[in-house]
């Protein structure tokens, strides 16, 4: 049999999380104007300052143009066709029993039984279904530690001072087109506040899911780690199968003060479109962390397997002396997926260091791009960066691209960059198969080996999930 067609048939994937749940939505009409923004702000019972901020963002957005520099192609998005607010009808819940059974079933299908997580895993889950948080658990335990973990809309009402102090300070609404849109219309997301000296007693986790037809998801997450605190945050998502493209423009802001550490892990599995490239999520995300304090540390780990378009560059600005930024990424694209992802490490403080390990896997007719910026300011004496960027190609119709940029304005900076591109070799496959390992398991073994450096940065449960996800995304009918 022809080797390429064998590999091609092999990597055809089926999206297993494709289904939708029928829940009555309380939605705004499609389109965007100041009235819609007022409607959202009102629905969320927001204080006046938030509405003002949203309106400023909206007015600024009207002056911006959608960026075109990324290595992705997609039909023009009509922002007037998007519904910017949609919420399940039932709200104020005090326990999981009040959660719509349909929603619980949806999570179960995704393999995320909330109850079991609650009991077994010890993970607090702030589950976002469409645009409103419907279940938040483990609040008591967190409250005892003084940790605040809630929906951002709740935080806006309850902790306006923290919001005023930090929201939009890492990613201002003027930052970019999609972040600006998010500032105007974001409907939910998570808020975490870890007080000084506290090690968060559990890993915080949010599962996102896009559900209502043509509803853009505009999540906004803000995590503040006070001096000497530590938090590990897990973000995972999956979406039901849809024909029309769904826009997602999230913003995540992280702030680490003196000696604080934030570990942010993502497993992203949104609907990537069918194998002809129809449908799929457009994922335009702005994620950035500020290492404001000395000796602070922010780590981003991401496993990106979904979405038709991924536009995402989790970054760290290293202000504090001796602060550390890390980025570990696996991006898998298949069929007609396009991913343009990478990171920015901005060195400002003295003796700051950053590590970038990016693994791109391209299969089918997909395009996989790594884009990185290492920027060392003149103040960043003895800044260090190590970047390793590897691409693995499966089949001969896909592409891997690397666009690294290095700006070093300090003569004492030490910057290393390594890059490789390889194909899964027929000789490797034959070696595995000669030992009795099936072709499917062989590919999975080789791919998992390729990603190992990143997987070991993930919390244990997540690493297993990530491995499974890659397997599902590469599985198909072996001829």
């Amino acid at each position, binding site marked *: *049999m022809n*080797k390429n067609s064998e590999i091609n048939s092999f990597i055809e994937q089926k999206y297993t999380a494709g289904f939708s749940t029928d829940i009555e939505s309380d939605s705004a009409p499609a389109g965007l104007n100041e009235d819609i923004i007022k409607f959202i702000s009102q629905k969320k019972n927001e204080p006046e300052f938030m509405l003002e901020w949203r309106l400023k963002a909206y007015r600024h957005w009207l002056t911006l143009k959608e960026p075109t520099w990324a290595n992705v192609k997609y039909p023009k998005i009509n922002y007037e066709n998007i519904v910017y607010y949609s919420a399940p009808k039932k709200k104020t819940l005090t326990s999981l029993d009040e959660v719509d059974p349909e929603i619980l079933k949806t999570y179960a299908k995704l393999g995320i039984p909330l109850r079991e997580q609650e009991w077994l895993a010890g993970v607090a889950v702030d589950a976002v279904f469409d645009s409103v948080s419907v279940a938040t658990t483990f609040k008591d335990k967190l409250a005892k530690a003084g940790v605040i973990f809630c929906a951002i809309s709740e935080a806006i009402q309850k902790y306006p001072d923290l919001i005023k102090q930090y929201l939009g300070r890492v990613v201002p609404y003027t930052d970019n087109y999609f972040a600006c849109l998010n500032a105007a219309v974001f409907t939910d997301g998570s808020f975490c506040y870890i007080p000084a000296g506290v090690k968060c007693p559990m890993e915080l986790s949010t599962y996102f899911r896009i559900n209502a037809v043509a509803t853009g998801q505009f999540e906004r997450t803000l995590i503040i780690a006070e001096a000497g605190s530590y938090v590990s945050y897990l973000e995972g998502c999956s979406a039901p199968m849809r024909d029309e493209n769904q826009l997602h423009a999230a913003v995540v802001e992280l702030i680490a003060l003196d000696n604080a550490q934030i570990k942010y892990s993502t497993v992203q599995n949104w609907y990537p479109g069918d194998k002809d490239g129809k449908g799929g999520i457009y994922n335009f995300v702005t994620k950035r962390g500020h290492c404001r304090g000395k000796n602070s540390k922010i780590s981003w780990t991401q496993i990106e397997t979904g979405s038709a378009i991924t536009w995402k560059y989790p970054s760290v600005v290293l202000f504090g002396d001796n602060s550390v930024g890390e980025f570990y990424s696996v991006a898998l694209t298949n069929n007609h997926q396009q991913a343009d992802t990478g990171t920015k490490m901005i060195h400002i403080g003295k003796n700051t260091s950053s590590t970038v390990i990016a693994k791109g896997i391209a299969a089918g007719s997909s395009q996989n791009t790594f884009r990185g910026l290492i920027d060392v300011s003149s103040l960043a004496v003895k800044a260090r960066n190590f970047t390793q960027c590897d691409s693995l190609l499966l089949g001969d119709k896909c592409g891997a691209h690397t666009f690294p940029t290095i700006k070093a304005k300090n003569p004492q900076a030490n910057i290393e960059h390594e890059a490789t591109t390889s194909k899964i*070799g*027929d*000789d*490797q496959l*034959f*070696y*595995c*198969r*000669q*030992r*009795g*390992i*099936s*072709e499917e*398991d062989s590919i999975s*073994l*080789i791919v*998992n*080996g*390729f*990603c*190992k*450096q990143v997987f070991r940065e993930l919390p244990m449960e997540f690493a297993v999930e990530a491995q499974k996800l890659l397997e599902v995304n590469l599985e198909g009918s072996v001829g």
Partner: protein
Amino acid sequence: MKPMLIIKNLVVSVDKKTIIKDLNLTINPGEIHAIMGPNGSGKSTLANVLARNQDYVIESGTIEFNGEDIITTAPEICARNGLFMSFQYPVAIAGVTNIQFIKTAVNAVRKHQNLATYDAIEFLQLIKEKMAVLNMDQDFLYRPINEGFSGGEKKRNEILQMILLEPKLAILDETDSGLDIDALKDVANGVNTLRDPAKAILMITHYQRLLDYITPDFVHVMSDGKLIYSGDKTLPAELEAKGYAWLKGRAEQ
């Protein structure tokens, strides 16, 4: 007794060039065969064809392994049915530890043979025992398979896999090349543990030296895609003394 392997009138090509031309060979359980011959005579091609490497095209002829035609059988199925090849150039797989790889392979084979699979602890014990036979350092367990291994380390590791997979038919493709004398002895020791009335070994080699430690029952000389002469364990010494040319002359007569 049913033969282990029957090759009849085999013709094989690679990139449209005919490499094996009308080859016949029968191997019975309990036998050790050696195929010797000059470079380019088709020895490694034969090993790869038997292991079902699909880069090699079978133009005509038949191969029966354990009474079954394997011409269209996938390599993993042959492997699970007990056919093992020790590679001349084992490939590295980044990020996959030796123990992870070998355990995956052993359990895939055992599952197919309806044997109980090993859990991590059982397997660790087992592999450590077998590594001792081959004088292998335990560091090898957690190093990525074949990555940065020396020639001798790779060959020891191939034989380690062979011992753990317990094949019915082991094909050793130039297993002696690149080995120093200590490694050669360890490898031979390992191979000799496989000697069993129910198992067979096919060794492919340039030189006599491995055969000093693993005594073959039959020695064949391959030249230009055919087995041109067969003898017993005394043949290698004769070849060493006279070279291949005298046999070529005889074959042409």
